[in-house]
């Protein structure tokens, strides 16, 4: 696939990423062979429930995993360069300047003892040879850009003096202060009120167009994904279940888990239908089953699902899915021989 488009490498390409954590109960494989591609200016959504490895994937890209976490296999290519081999100095340059991240909880993600302005200025000063006054102007402009009124006053305030939505705006301002190519948003709206959620998402879309950046949005909320994403990756148990364009995933889901997810959300279309929750509990990463991670909760599980991990099969329209049901139903397309 990617090898064929030789002219310009994609902005970010994750290839067969494996990330594990060393715990006292053993090695936990949090991400187990994840691959996807992000093009310039596009939005990629990673969906999954807690423990599916979606956040770990995001943190692996930034290399901000906890001390016991490490990438064990695979490549992360930024404009064709494998950043997994970067030195810590190179990574410092990558973080913030090439790729920024905002987190789920804006309450705890800002340092309580420094002013908002100080923290935004820091993001500028780390990457650019600018004077304090210049950094201050940039920071105030960023605050205005993310829609904070009275930016000069807010600049001097401490995080606890701001509301949750405002803090998330500050986080975005800080993340974008060095004009990164990619913004990773890790559950950016989960901790916020519903009305604020919509505002933050709109803000992100608006800024994406202004600054022409790519966004990776990590969430469990299919509503957020539907609003934002061009491409979607669905994860379960550290693996990708299926990936493809937003339309493909929403209208032609090809993995039992995705189908389950879509059945479990209310929408105007299925108002009269009964919502169907996915039975069972999320998988325990310490005891991964031999076969498909989802088989224990899957209504259509087959004997092969228990024994063998389904391969990723190409479906029509750039859609990929890892589900044995596609083999049974012959939905997949043949790939060229060299693949």
């Amino acid at each position, binding site marked *: 696939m990617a090898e064929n488009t030789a002219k310009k490498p994609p902005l970010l390409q994750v290839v067969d990423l494996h990330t594990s954590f060393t715990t006292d109960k053993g090695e936990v494989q949090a991400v187990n062979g994840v691959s996807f591609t992000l093009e310039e200016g596009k939005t990629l959504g990673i969906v999954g429930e807690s423990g599916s490895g979606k956040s770990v994937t995001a943190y692996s890209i*930034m290399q*901000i995993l*906890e*001390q016991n976490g490490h990438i064990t296999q695979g490549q992360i290519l930024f404009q064709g360069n494998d950043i997994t081999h970067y030195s*810590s100095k190179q990574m*410092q*340059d*990558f*973080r*913030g*300047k090439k790729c*920024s*991240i905002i*987190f789920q*909880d804006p309450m*705890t*993600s*800002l*340092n*309580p*003892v*420094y002013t908002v302005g100080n923290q935004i200025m*820091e*993001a500028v000063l*780390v*990457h650019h040879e600018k004077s304090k006054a210049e950094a201050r102007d940039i920071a105030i402009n960023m605050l205005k850009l993310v829609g904070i009124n009275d930016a000069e006053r807010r600049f001097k305030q*401490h995080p*606890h*003096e701001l509301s949750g939505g405002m803090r998330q705006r500050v*986080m975005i301002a*800080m*993340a974008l202060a*060095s004009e990164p190519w990619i913004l990773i948003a890790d559950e950016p709206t989960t901790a916020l009120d519903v009305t604020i959620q919509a505002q933050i998402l709109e803000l992100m879309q608006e800024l994406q167009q202004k600054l022409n950046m790519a966004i990776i949005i990590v969430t469990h909320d299919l509503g957020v994904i539907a609003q934002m994403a061009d491409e979607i990756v669905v994860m379960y148990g550290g693996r990708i279940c299926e990936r493809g364009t937003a339309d493909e995933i929403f209208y032609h889901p090809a993995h039992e888990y995705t189908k389950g997810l879509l059945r479990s959300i209310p929408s105007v279309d299925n108002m009269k239908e009964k919502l169907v929750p996915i039975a069972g509990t999320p998988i325990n990463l310490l005891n991964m089953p031999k076969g498909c991670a989802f088989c224990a909760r899957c209504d259509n599980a087959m004997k092969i699902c228990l024994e063998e991990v389904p391969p990723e099969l190409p479906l029509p329209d750039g859609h990929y899915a890892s589900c044995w049901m596609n083999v049974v139903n012959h939905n997949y397309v043949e790939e060229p021989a060299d693949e």
Partner: protein
Amino acid sequence: MSKYLVKRILLAVVSVFVICLITFFAMNAVPGGPFNSEKALTPAVKATLLERFNLDKPIGQQFLIYMRNMLHGDFGISLKTGRDISGTLLECFAVSAKIGGIAALFAVIIGVILGALAALFRNKWPDRLIIFLTTLFTAMPSFVFATLLLMVFCIQLKWLPVWDASNRSLVLPVIALAAYPTAYVTRLTKTSMLDALSQDYIRTARSKGVSTVKVIFKHALRNALIPVITYVGPMLAYILTGSLVVENIFSIGGLGKQFVQSITNRDYPMIMATTIFLAVIMVVMNLLSDILYKVVDPRIKLD
């Protein structure tokens, strides 16, 4: 904030009052008046003495008189030396405050540095060495450590002079007093440093591309120091208590030595005055460190 301040100061005042109450009535509970142990006095002389010291009045009134005098800085006179107690106390306090102050500074500075180092080199040898030493020192009573210091450096190695009135080196007493607080501050700093390092805002700082050194010294340490401030009050109390033995071991004429001496001498007014004086210092120090804590942590101002 101001509500907290008022509450906290009120508590301190009540504490001081309770201490005075306990001390006064405890001392009065000692059987026999202060003049019973002396040579037999004629009833007339005794009566005059009792009147002179207000001892003929009911106990409640005596307490009030004592409190009133105390507030004017008058603790009465020592039974043993006949000298004015407040003068003696201030003299001794100057000595104790010097040693204790140096010990406290030492403990905070060295403790924070070692604690930060231990957190930085977590599970590597510097961490293990520091934690081994601090565990050892938190298990060693100050009198054991002081005596060991004396034994090793003054008697065995003869590096430093002992009991030398002219050339009193403060090195050993300060080390003896500072050992436990230093160890405690080290452990406290390490714990709160690790706690701070696991916070989300550290992840944010890293994700901005801030260098590791700056993440630690700008973002983590400042937050980690907040709990250390709360320990400053108890630390000063510990140092003052520790000075009871350390000053005796090194023969330093501070408050601690004075206190122990007055107990040995059964010098009740002196015991009473020293207890109240020490207690007031401790309560005030605790009050100050609590207030400082609130000042340093910007989050508190909201409530």
